[in-house]
């Protein structure tokens, strides 16, 4: 058993001792230091209201439901506020909040589970500590948007920016390129063990650069060190171990801190002359470089140049790119299926084994195809929605179980958003999407029959209107109309 804990511990702390180069940040301007006003009671209740009552409790066994009841009293709220404000003011994070349990969960869909890398640690922290972290994270989010700390092309871990924005940016780029007669090639990068690799010294330097108050930097210096975690695998549990180099996955601060960590890479990249020819897009740890030109061969040269530049930036930040997971894809609407292989120059994709584009490219949950038809994407999501409609059948039949009103609510709130994920990429004025719509129609028909309890051969339009559902194409039109402003 000890061997297992050691193997896990070493994998998740593999980044310790990695060199970082703080001078790399010098070209960036240092922002003016901003104040950090004390937390208000509203911030605390807001942070608490957004917590799921079902999430797993940490080592203190207190669930959010319990905390919500406790914090009905003003006295308790005041105690927590005093504690949170004192933590920032004094620059100290109590030891009790630093203890955690890392539950080892298998990553779904791996062919083999023989290495620790096919498992991810989810950190369970003490509930009060988590609440304060949430409040801090909300503040940081606000700062990020208000003071423009992140590049517009950086999506993920940032409020008001979703994966759909990233997808739209990419499709827009490709389509405008086509209009100018340019073809687009993209390379997607993968950062190995992103969350555990964030370097503390670097993070503090970045926070200082970004104009956070010195008390906040001091607080984070205390927050990040001397952390202990116990690993848990099924019902087995190890003793506490020191886990310094990492922002734990599962803590509310980890997405924000990682977004702030990546921000300088984006800014430094856009200061480099290479960026004039290429666009860089990043979503937490998924980066994408897109090159555009009249010929695909020309794209390859620019891509290689950008890849080398990014690699040097990431290494300076103590991050490691996993070359084996790098993907390459071509957007081209001509009839030719010419796709030159990309010789990345890093193992395993060298001249003997160059990188070749696949039929589909899965990025942020979108299935991109060469001609941006999105048939595969819609097929995937309507199948997913259909399977959930079928699973919902066990919730009620025409005689027993849920009443139709609830069934409709369930369908509208839980199934439709899944089925229409990323619709803005393929549904717009003048788009040809007859094929995509037909598979969504089938799915909605099944749901309408389940809601009304009608016979299986009833006409689609009739059941839909009885169930109070808008036909799919009109529903999409409505949503697209609302999205434009």
């Amino acid at each position, binding site marked *: 058993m000890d061997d297992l804990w050691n193997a896990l511990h070493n994998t998740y702390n593999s980044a310790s001792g990695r060199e970082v180069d703080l001078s790399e940040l010098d070209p960036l301007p240092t922002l003016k230091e901003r104040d950090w006003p004390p937390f208000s009671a509203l911030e605390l209740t807001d942070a608490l209201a957004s917590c799921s*009552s*079902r999430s797993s409790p940490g080592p*203190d*066994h*207190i669930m959010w439901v*319990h905390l919500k*009841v*406790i914090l*009905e*009293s003003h*006295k*308790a709220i*005041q*105690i927590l506020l*005093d*504690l949170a*404000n*004192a*933590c920032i*003011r*004094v620059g*100290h994070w*109590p*030891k*009790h*909040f630093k203890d955690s349990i890392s539950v*080892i*969960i*298998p990553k779904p869909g791996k062919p083999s*589970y*023989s290495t620790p890398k096919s*498992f991810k640690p989810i950190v369970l922290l*003490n509930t*009060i500590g988590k609440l304060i972290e949430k409040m801090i994270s909300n503040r940081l989010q606000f700062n990020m948007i208000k003071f423009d700390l992140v590049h517009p092309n950086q999506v993920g871990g940032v409020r008001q920016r979703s994966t759909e924005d990233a997808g739209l940016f990419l499709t827009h780029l490709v389509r405008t390129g086509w209009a100018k007669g340019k073809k687009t090639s993209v390379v997607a990068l993968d950062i190995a063990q992103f969350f555990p690799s964030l370097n503390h010294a670097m993070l503090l330097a970045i926070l200082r650069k970004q104009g956070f108050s010195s008390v906040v930097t001091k607080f984070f210096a*205390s927050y990040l060190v001397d952390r202990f975690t116990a690993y848990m*695998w*099924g*019902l*087995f549990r190890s003793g506490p171990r020191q886990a310094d180099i990492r922002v734990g996955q599962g803590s509310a601060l980890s997405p924000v801190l990682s977004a702030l960590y990546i921000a300088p890479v984006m800014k430094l990249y856009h200061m480099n002359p290479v960026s004039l020819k290429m666009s860089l897009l990043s979503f937490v740890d998924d980066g994408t470089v897109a090159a555009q030109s009249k010929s695909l061969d020309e794209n390859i040269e620019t891509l290689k140049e950008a890849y080398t530049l990014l690699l040097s930036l990431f290494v300076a930040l103590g991050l490691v790119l996993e070359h084996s997971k790098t993907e390459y894809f071509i957007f081209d609407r001509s009839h030719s299926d010419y796709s030159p292989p990309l010789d990345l120059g890093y193992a395993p994709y060298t001249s003997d084994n160059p990188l070749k584009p696949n039929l589909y490219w899965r990025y942020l949950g979108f299935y991109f195809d060469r001609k941006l038809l999105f048939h595969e994407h819609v097929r995937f999501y309507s199948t997913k929605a259909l*399977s*959930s409609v*079928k*699973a*919902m059948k*066990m*919730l*009620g039949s025409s005689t027993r*179980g*849920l009443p139709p009103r*609830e*069934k409709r*609510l*369930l369908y509208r*709130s*839980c*199934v439709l958003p899944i089925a229409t994920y990323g619709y803005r990429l393929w549904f717009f004025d003048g788009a040809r999407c007859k094929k995509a719509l037909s598979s969504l129609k089938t799915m909605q028909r099944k749901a309408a029959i389940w809601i009304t309890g009608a016979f299986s051969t009833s006409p689609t339009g009739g059941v839909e209107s009885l169930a109070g559902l808008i036909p799919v194409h009109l529903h999409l039109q409505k949503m697209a109309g609302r999205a434009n402003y």
Partner: protein
Amino acid sequence: MNCLRFNTWAVTLTFTQECGTLTSHIEIAADLDLEWTQPSNPGPTFISHNEDLRPSVIDLMFHQISDSARSRTNRDPDWKGPADHIPLTTSVILDSVIKGVTRRSITRGSDAEKAFINNLRTGVPAITVGTLNTPADIDRVAQALADVFSTVWDEHSKEVCITKHSQPWWDDECTSLLSQYKTEKLEESWLAFRRTVKAAKRKFFDSRIEDIALLNKCPWDLMEWVKQRKLPACEAI
């Protein structure tokens, strides 16, 4: 362990030199931390019904190397009966107590949980904060909070044993009726127990459905019910 046939059944300590196959078997066993133990009364273990064939030794017994000194292996010709193999018996040392996996928990929606929440409600506001100007002060308040949580938890949680037979719908009534049946051994009490189980199941699943549909609105949770059963992470490897 049914292993090999000898030409001679004069099994002595010298036979290992005679038979290469056995030596290789012993080596393989040694890789697995096992050791061959000779019966205390050596002799043939296979006597064919065909009287023309000679008896032979084809059954071998292996033990863990650490245990082999303590354990005794015996050949019991009296227990052979009509079979052609002679049974071998041995003693294996077991750990005195086999522990189940236990952990402390509070059942959701139980009286214990209500008392737990009530105690927290009075306990947390009673903490004295005072001035918070040094790291030690912060540690003190955080520790006070932690102490309240852990004492209340210890007071109300109880040890539960986790087995693969644990059912989510099982409730206290089922337990009492099952123990009643175990003492009385009457058919009526068995029927009463079955009725309660059925009612408990129906109550549990109805409340789950209501929960999912009206309260948290995630029918994705239900996918677990229809999906292919997955092995727990530690068994899947």
